[in-house]
């Protein structure tokens, strides 16, 4: 390879990681998508390897020469040159050389942007999103594949987030790629009626990806927050593209932003989970809340109302309250009433019962829990027992409350949940004694 051009010989004042946030990860994801279009989806791994090598070249040279003036363009050009090496060496790709050369010729000497036109890159990334979130790929593999190919996570990071082994994640990725080949999944943005259906699948996968990062029950906290950010970024790319710019996409993005804005207040200094009631609202990320409210307004265009609209509405009610006491529980309840109609999940019904109890008292909450359809699936869910305990405690039924907290404690998954429940249990036991 020729010496990299466009390099500043003075090392820059700021470190590269601060200069451009997640530069390698995001540029890498872009290039994997574009090279996949050229090589063909069956050569996804090759595209990943080429981009990995290009990033390795950056790691090899930047520390000595500093960050190039246009780091993203540098990574692109290096990936493209390495891709050319590959197609020239491998007979199967001989006919692809013209395609890459053609891309090279588009490069005008004055502007690096012209190497790959922005729109083409955006299209490639969206195609990749539709592949990763294809309904034929099992959902756990979808998340792993999206994190690997679109977000540049490696197997170790994904396994840390999902609290599983690297081997298990590697297996999921291999199976997902096999599925892509067997089912002849195409690298394309669906059109017409299929677009709507497939878009629902993509939204669902991004929602699950976000939740995977958001749920505090397990895994490495920093990696998980990164996953939330990546889910937000991908959904943001979706709303910016004509094929994804739908009211429900805006609603999903609003929901993610409004929830993620509360992350900084969710744990205390010791890493203990804090209830909404206990959170210091000054830690909420205000710019993120504002972005969330913006997309919530965008989502109101058109007639459709999706589960994302309702959940974003609920999140917005919490964000709009200046303190816990001024929460508009009636508005939240009316949104939950609509949500249980669209989403029959017992977990949604359990959340509705909590809201109901906040308005009509703990007895109404207990009745609502008793009336949950398929409520027995919640029996192994620690939160059901924690909520029952809370309601009983408010009714001063200390013995019943203690029983529920005890059961909940047995099912809790994290240390902070356990500590919280143990504290509630001790309070009930104190009351029983006095």
């Amino acid at each position, binding site marked *: 390879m020729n010496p990299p051009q466009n390099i500043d010989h003075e090392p820059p004042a700021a*470190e590269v*990681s*601060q200069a451009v946030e997640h530069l390698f990860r995001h540029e890498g994801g872009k290039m994997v998508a574009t090279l996949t279009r050229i090589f063909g989806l069956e050569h996804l791994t090759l595209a990943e390897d080429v981009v*990995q090598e290009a990033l390795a070249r950056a*790691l*090899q040279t930047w*520390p000595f020469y500093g960050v190039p003036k246009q780091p993203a363009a540098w990574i692109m050009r290096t990936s493209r040159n390495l891709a050319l090496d590959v197609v020239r060496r491998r007979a199967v790709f001989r006919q692809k050389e013209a395609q890459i050369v053609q891309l090279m010729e588009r490069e005008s000497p004055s502007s690096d942007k012209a190497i790959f036109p922005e729109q083409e890159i955006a299209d490639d990334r969206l195609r990749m999103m539709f592949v990763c979130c294809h309904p034929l790929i099992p959902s756990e593999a979808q998340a792993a594949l999206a994190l690997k190919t679109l977000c540049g996570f*490696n197997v170790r990071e994904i396994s840390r987030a999902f609290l599983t082994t690297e081997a298990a994640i590697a297996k999921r990725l291999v199976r997902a790629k096999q599925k892509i080949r067997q089912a002849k999944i195409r690298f394309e943005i669906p059109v017409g009626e299929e677009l709507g259906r497939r878009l629902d699948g993509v939204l669902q996968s991004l929602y699950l990806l976000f939740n995977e990062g958001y749920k505090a029950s397990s895994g490495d906290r920093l990696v998980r927050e990164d996953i939330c950010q990546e889910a937000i970024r991908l959904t943001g790319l979706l709303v910016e593209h004509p094929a994804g710019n739908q009211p429900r996409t805006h609603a999903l993005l609003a929901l993610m932003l409004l929830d993620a804005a509360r992350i900084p207040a969710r744990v205390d200094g010791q890493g203990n989970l804090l209830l909404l009631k206990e959170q210091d609202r000054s830690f909420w990320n205000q710019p993120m809340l504002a972005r969330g409210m913006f997309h919530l307004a965008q989502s109101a265009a058109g007639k459709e109302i999706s589960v994302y609209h309702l959940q974003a509405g609920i999140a917005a009610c919490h964000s709009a309250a200046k303190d816990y006491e001024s929460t508009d529980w009636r508005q939240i309840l009316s949104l939950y009433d609509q949500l249980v109609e669209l989403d029959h999940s017992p977990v949604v019904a359990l959340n509705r019962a909590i809201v109901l109890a906040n308005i009509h008292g703990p007895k109404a909450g207990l009745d609502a829990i008793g009336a949950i359809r398929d409520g027995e699936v919640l029996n192994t869910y620690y939160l059901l027992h924690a909520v029952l305990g809370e309601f009983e405690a408010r009714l001063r039924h200390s013995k019943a409350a203690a029983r529920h907290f005890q059961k909940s404690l047995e099912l809790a998954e994290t240390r902070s949940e356990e500590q919280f429940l143990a504290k509630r249990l001790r309070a009930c036991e104190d009351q029983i004694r006095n």
Partner: protein
Amino acid sequence: MNTETNNGYMLLFRGNEWYKGLSPEEMQSVSGQWMAWFKRLSEQGKAIAGNPLEPEGRMVSGKNGRVIADGPFAESKEAIGGYFLLNVGSFDEAVAIAKECPGLPYGAKIEVRHIASVCPMSEEPHVRAEPALAQA
């Protein structure tokens, strides 16, 4: 470098493989730390030069340089990926700097060598110190 005062030391970064398994995020982070490290050493006057080396090269050998071969010549875990030229007071200080290398936690390997003050070929043969290897 000042060979007359005997302060020249070379850090040789060995291996072209250790960063291959890193995620893009980790690579960016190492790259940023490395850049800051090199910048600090330059500002302190401790690093005089530093360059990465391309993996490919040519080997010239044979009488009158008749044999020229292309290719990487060392195993990639042994190949020299780059170097720093240091101007510091002692071997210990050079080793201490090598120990700060941000690549160490990921398996980078640094060879520390003292630049000879006088060409050793012109001196009496003597026992040479083994090169010190700073390793994770």
